[in-house]
């Protein structure tokens, strides 16, 4: 006998339930968890290197590194003295909550203020997977083109912070900061935009101020 069964469930329910578990874990430890996303090569690891170095005396930070194959990024982060746990996705294009739960077993969360989750370099897939983070932080480098928020709306619509990186290269590329910002704000009026250069350090102070304020808010 043929039967039609209404279901109406988010397909990624299972991941979302694990993300809720993660949210509780972060909250119990007064931990600010940030999901860092971008294309490959936009500067996620460089941003982390600088941030971990510059704020080492003010915040206790650690990183979960999502990578397809290598542990290059984890080694770069560990060189700053911060704790880094590597997740190799073996070709998987995004991190999910089960991977994060597994990685957290290797970390002393009570000794941390900020947990950066460096997602796999990809502007599409990571946007669909909640990792229980307080905020999604997206990096876009000026060499990628100012139309990216328009082309990948989901990623930018969900991000709380947008860092426009490599602004030291602005004289050499056709990238309109204003246009990128406008596109990002079309579907996301609240998005906070920081133009930065991880190479020269320009513009990093406002990002640091935001980070310190957000970490403090978790401890209140």
């Amino acid at each position, binding site marked *: 006998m043929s039967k*039609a069964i209404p279901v109406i469930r988010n397909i990624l329910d299972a991941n979302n339930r694990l993300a809720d578990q993660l949210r509780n874990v972060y909250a119990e430890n007064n931990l600010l968890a940030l999901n860092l996303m971008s294309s490959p090569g936009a500067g996620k690891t460089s941003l982390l290197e600088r941030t971990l170095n510059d704020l080492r005396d003010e915040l206790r930070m650690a990183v979960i590194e999502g990578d397809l194959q290598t542990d290059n990024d984890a080694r770069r982060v560990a060189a700053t003295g911060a704790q880094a746990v590597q997740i190799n996705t073996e070709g998987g294009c995004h991190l999910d909550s089960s991977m994060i739960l597994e990685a957290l077993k290797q970390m002393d969360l009570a000794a941390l203020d900020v947990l950066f989750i460096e997602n796999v370099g990809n502007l599409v897939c990571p946007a669909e997977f909640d990792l229980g983070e307080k905020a999604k932080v997206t990096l876009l480098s000026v060499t990628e083109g100012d139309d990216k928020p328009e082309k990948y709306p*989901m990623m930018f619509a969900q991000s709380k912070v947008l860092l426009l990186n490599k602004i030291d290269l602005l004289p050499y590329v056709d990238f309109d900061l204003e246009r990128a910002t406008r596109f990002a704000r079309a579907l996301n009026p609240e998005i906070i935009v920081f133009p930065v250069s991880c190479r020269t350090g320009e513009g990093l102070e406002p990002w640091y101020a935001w980070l310190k304020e957000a970490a403090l808010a978790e401890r209140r």
Partner: protein
Amino acid sequence: MHEMSIADALIRIVETEMANHGLRTVQRITIQHGALSTMVPEALDLAFEAMTRGTALEGAVLEYEKVPLSLRCSKCETTFSPEVRSLHFAPCPSCGEEFAHAVLTGKELNIAHIEGDT
């Protein structure tokens, strides 16, 4: 290609529902996906087919219902659906405001219903 993960999650939900409702086979699974969702139906078809080979779900057809983007104007609160081609130039038809609209629908990635035999 996160459609592999989506297919995996989908199969688990369908298997649970089959057990709950005593279905032996499944012919059709209806999926609702929003205009903003990054899921590509062709990629999900491919992943689903590969992952269900030799199982009770083999041969089940995925049907897609696209949920349009609908926005609420940030200024006058009118609800409207822009052309998908111009997601980011979506002036409110009522007051002309172009920015900061709230997304009401368009982010969905849902399984809506399953048809099969007991």
